[in-house]
């Protein structure tokens, strides 16, 4: 019986966990509830993905009001795949929170932290599953508001300013999205995404559609942190608690990328977005800029967390590059990189969280001699770095391979060169860590050596191990990304 209710349960389980945590108030029980809820979401998301891949589109009518009148949850391989990514990261991050949060958040705020994590998870999953344009906005704001609070919980006072700046940028982005939705609603008279997609072609290509496309693209791009709209991201990731950085870096921007793909390929359709105008060229140019400029900035960072944040902006460029190719191959590469980069960056932030706990800061200078004092953590960080570069045998290589193949299939040989060049920049910023951690003597006053606590190290190592696993055996992630790309390009038939 429950099988047919999987789409709604995926959103409701964390949504129910949040108020329950507020009622419990104590740190340990709230952590148990949050962990149980995130494990439950993964247990729901995996069969949902299987169902979506084997049976095609699943439609779920909330309150039994038939769509397009009522709110509909519409699941296909694409959003089920991203939902699996999000809940998988949740399962990795939640066990880590117990020690990580105890060190970084005031003890009377612990239950609020877990409640916000649950709301954020619920909001992100809601964005993915909903088939209603305005419902999507509401979930976007639920997840964003929770995110602002989580970022402000960082110890540094700069976390407050970072959160404030993100609040301004995020709200402007969400409001622009609402304007776009309003224009579409005025034209089509529907908010149901599938219905909208069916009605838009009959409208021809009026200017209001163009305006809606522009507003939605810019609004969502702010949330994606697509270069040059990424200014909120480095500070937000750098000053938030480590568990939050890992969770956000792996999920928040990825979900927004899915929204952009959904609008480009399913709602507006390729002809309106790519064939009739220069969206593809603009997106290509911005992606190339994202691949190079933030990567160069990352090289000059003195703080490892900020370095990783800039590298995230640069990696987002690869994903949008895949979108700009507007072929199934390009989309497959984008979705595969979504998955692989979520694992890599999430894992690296988790490892870094353990290091920061021991060293008391994330400045690169403090990492001197880390290869000797914390050998396992330093080694895991380097493996993650290799995956960022795209060395064969790591997950990052697989998606870059897909990307290069897709670019060549389009006859864009020079793009392969660009991807290679930008990977060289990644080599430089990863090498900075290697050089400091392995070839410098530990400072005389270095803190007592020893690895991070096991509860921090194990989830981090598991994630890095997953990143190697999916680098060696990409059959599952590759075929899922392919199915998701075909579902996106095929529309919601």
């Amino acid at each position: 019986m429950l099988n047919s209710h999987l789409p709604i349960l995926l959103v409701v389980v964390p949504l129910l966990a949040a108020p329950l945590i507020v009622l419990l108030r104590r740190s340990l029980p709230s952590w148990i509830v949050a962990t149980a809820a995130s494990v439950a979401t993964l247990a729901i998301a995996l069969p949902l993905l299987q169902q979506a891949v084997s049976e095609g589109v699943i439609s779920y009518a909330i309150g039994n009001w038939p769509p397009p009148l009522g709110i509909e949850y519409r699941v296909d391989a694409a959003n089920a795949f991203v939902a699996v990514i999000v809940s998988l990261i949740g399962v990795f991050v939640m066990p880590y929170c117990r020690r990580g949060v105890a060190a970084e958040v005031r003890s009377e705020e612990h239950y609020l932290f877990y409640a916000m994590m649950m709301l954020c998870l619920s909001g992100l999953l809601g964005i993915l599953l909903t088939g209603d344009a305005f419902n999507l906005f509401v979930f976007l704001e639920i997840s964003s508001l929770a995110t602002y609070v989580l970022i402000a919980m960082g110890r540094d006072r700069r976390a407050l300013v970072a959160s404030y700046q993100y609040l301004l940028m995020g709200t402007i982005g969400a409001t622009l999205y609402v304007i776009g939705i309003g224009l579409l609603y005025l034209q089509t008279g529907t908010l149901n995404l599938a219905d909208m997609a069916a009605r838009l072609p009959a409208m021809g290509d009026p200017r209001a559609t163009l305006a809606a496309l522009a507003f939605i693209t810019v609004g969502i791009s702010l949330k994606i942190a697509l270069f040059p709209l990424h200014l909120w991201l480095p500070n937000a990731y750098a000053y938030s608690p480590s568990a939050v950085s890992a969770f956000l870096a792996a999920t928040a921007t990825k979900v927004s990328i899915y929204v952009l793909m959904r609008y480009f390929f399913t709602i507006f359709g390729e002809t309106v977005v790519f064939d009739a105008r220069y969206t593809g060229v603009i997106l290509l140019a911005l992606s190339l800029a994202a691949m190079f400029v933030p990567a160069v900035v990352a090289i000059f960072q003195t703080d490892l967390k900020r370095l990783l944040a800039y590298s995230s902006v640069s990696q987002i460029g690869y994903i949008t590059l895949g979108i700009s190719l507007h072929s199934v191959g390009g989309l497959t590469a984008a979705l595969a990189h979504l998955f692989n980069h979520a694992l890599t960056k999430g894992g690296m932030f988790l490892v870094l969280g353990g290091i920061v706990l021991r060293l008391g800061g994330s400045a690169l200078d403090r990492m001197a001699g880390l290869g000797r004092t914390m050998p396992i953590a330093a080694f895991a960080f380097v493996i993650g770095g290799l995956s960022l570069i795209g060395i064969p045998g790591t997950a990052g290589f697989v998606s870059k391979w897909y990307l290069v193949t897709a670019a060549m299939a389009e006859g864009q040989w020079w793009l392969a060169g660009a991807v290679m060049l930008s990977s060289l920049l990644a080599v430089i910023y990863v090498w900075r860590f290697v050089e400091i951690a392995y070839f410098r003597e530990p400072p005389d006053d270095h803190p007592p050596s020893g690895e991070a606590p096991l509860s921090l190290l194990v989830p981090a190592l598991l994630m890095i191990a997953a990143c190697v696993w999916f680098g060696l055996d990409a059959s599952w992630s590759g075929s899922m990304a392919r199915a998701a790309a075909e579902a996106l390009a095929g529309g919601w038939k």
Partner: protein
Amino acid sequence: MSIAGHYSYFVTILLLMVGLFIVIARSNLIKKLVGLGLFQTAVYLLYIAPGKLIGGVAPIIGEGFEVYSNPLPHVLILTAIVVGVATLALGLALVVRIKEAYGSIEEEEILALDADDELKARDPS
């Protein structure tokens, strides 16, 4: 359609631009939030205005009424207002904490304080 027929859109666009300008140009964090509020309010107008039919009444079925205004935009905007209130409350709460941590709510002064911190962190002497 004449310009007069579109006047609600022009008001909307004007308010949007004013709000966005305040967010960008002012350095006072509270004023920025005021601008953000204006920006969001303009969007409410964008939804509400087209929902009104001339001669239409509230959509409650009754004798002698045949033309009803569209209620859906109102419901959507009620939701958007709640979201706006939550955003504003959170933003103000952040400004209170920033004031306590930095002793200022002027963006330039805060950034200057941060730059000072960074210099000290790099060169402790």
